């Protein structure tokens, strides 16, 4: 096969190569070392130690659905564990129709931490909200007006943990985990307007949008994709799904670079050979 033909390989060949290559780390984990990015370290520092007082109320917003579990969920799991272990109380909200699945998965992945917590006293699942940036703004000024009751129908006033929790001033911090830009909405309507602590747990694609916001101080920390989740797992000392996925990320990224190189060798050979 001439080098020029490298520019014209059937796409199915690549699908099979990737499929087979991704099997390898699952069958035989490699375990490359991981270093901690400063944005992830800031996120972890912001939800642990002196930054969190016992009894603080935090919001964890599920801005991702089932399709982004692999990218967002490990980081949300670590953050939930860290906040619970600091004695914080958590309000869970979400903007995806499947957020109950995500909430149930979180209860599963943090089962040991949920075990000694009482629903309604240590955490509450307020459920689905819709309304884009307007509802995030309204949440800042009056949480009860957005959620007159929790997901299971218990009136807001009957939930002990929410007694005295009225608006942004009663919330110690917000962790928004997104495939979209609800983190940006919290930044504008909470951090920008009232100076609330906001951090973002985004899919890898959101990194380029979120990192400048972290550098500017709008987000106190940012976790980027599965890699961010793996870094957080390392920080809390409990390796999980994201760490397992890192080997696959390594293999797929290497193959991607290899594909780019092969494609360009083919093009270069064609150019040098004068073929159009």
């Amino acid at each position, binding site marked *: 096969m001439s080098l020029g033909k490298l520019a014209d390989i059937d*796409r199915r060949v690549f699908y099979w190569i990737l499929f087979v290559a991704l099997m390898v780390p699952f069958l035989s984990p490699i375990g*490359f070392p*991981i270093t901690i990015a400063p944005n992830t370290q800031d996120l972890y520092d912001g939800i642990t130690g002196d930054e969190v007082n016992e009894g603080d109320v935090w919001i964890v917003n599920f801005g991702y659905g*089932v399709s982004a579990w692999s990218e967002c969920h490990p980081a949300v799991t670590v953050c939930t564990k860290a906040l619970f272990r600091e004695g914080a109380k958590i309000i869970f909200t979400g903007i995806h129709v499947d957020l109950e699945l995500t909430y149930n998965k979180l209860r599963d992945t943090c089962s040991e931490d949920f075990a000694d917590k009482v629903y309604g006293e240590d955490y509450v699942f307020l459920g689905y909200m*819709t309304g884009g940036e*307007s509802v995030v703004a309204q949440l800042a000024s009056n949480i009860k007006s957005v959620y007159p009751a929790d997901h299971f129908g218990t009136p807001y006033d009957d939930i002990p943990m929410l007694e005295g929790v009225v608006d942004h001033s009663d919330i110690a911090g917000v962790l928004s985990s997104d495939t979209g830009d609800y983190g940006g909405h919290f930044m504008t309507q909470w951090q920008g307007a009232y100076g609330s602590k906001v951090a973002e747990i985004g899919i890898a694609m959101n990194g380029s949008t979120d990192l*400048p916001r972290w*550098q500017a101080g709008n987000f106190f920390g940012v976790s980027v994709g599965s890699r961010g989740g793996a870094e957080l797992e390392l920080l809390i000392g409990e390796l999980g799904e994201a760490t397992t996925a890192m080997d696959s990320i390594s293999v797929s990224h290497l193959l991607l*670079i290899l594909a780019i190189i*092969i494609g360009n060798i083919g093009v270069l050979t064609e150019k040098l050979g004068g073929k159009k």
Partner: protein
Amino acid sequence: MSDILKREVVYAITGIITVLMLLEYFFFDTSQAWAEALRTWAVIIYNISLFLGAIRLSIAHSVRIQEKRRDWQYSGILMAIFVIQLLTGLAAYITTGVATNNGIYNWLFNYVYTPLGATLYPITGFYIFSAAYRAFRARNIDAALMLIAGCLVMLKNAPVGEAIWIGFATLGNWVQFTAQVPGMRTLAIVGALGLIAFGFRALLGKERGFYAGGGE
């Protein structure tokens, strides 16, 4: 009269509400009751639009099924699941107060929606792999720079990059934290300025698309 209702009244409502919300955001330290009421209305209207969307979706797919258009079977599956979820969810809500207290409703979510959702996103990885080979070609200096930057960030994100050469992390961090940030900030600022300009044009009635009358 209808023209006044369609245009001037809509312009006036939009203008008044915009000015009120801007005033509350920039000139009050605490949230104002009148602003809260307006935001509540915005959320209500947003929810109504979801309801209208569901009705519109069901009408569109019903027509496709009736006329047996191309791939109408998919519309049939969509409508069947739509009706099942709606009825089981409503039944559970009426009887228990929680829409998800229904076996069929949960089964469809857990064993149909979840695997499909979890599969859909990773499948894009295969397309990206193939697309990277076919589309990421260094045909000129700009494309070459983009390719190099992309590869550096990939090697920085994947732990294998640092295992190959520790310098990939440094280079990738420089691209991600130093080189791309000015570009993204510029985009954000220019986008915000554009939004302000768009807002003013909308307030002045010059952006007719905003009022759903762009084509008229």
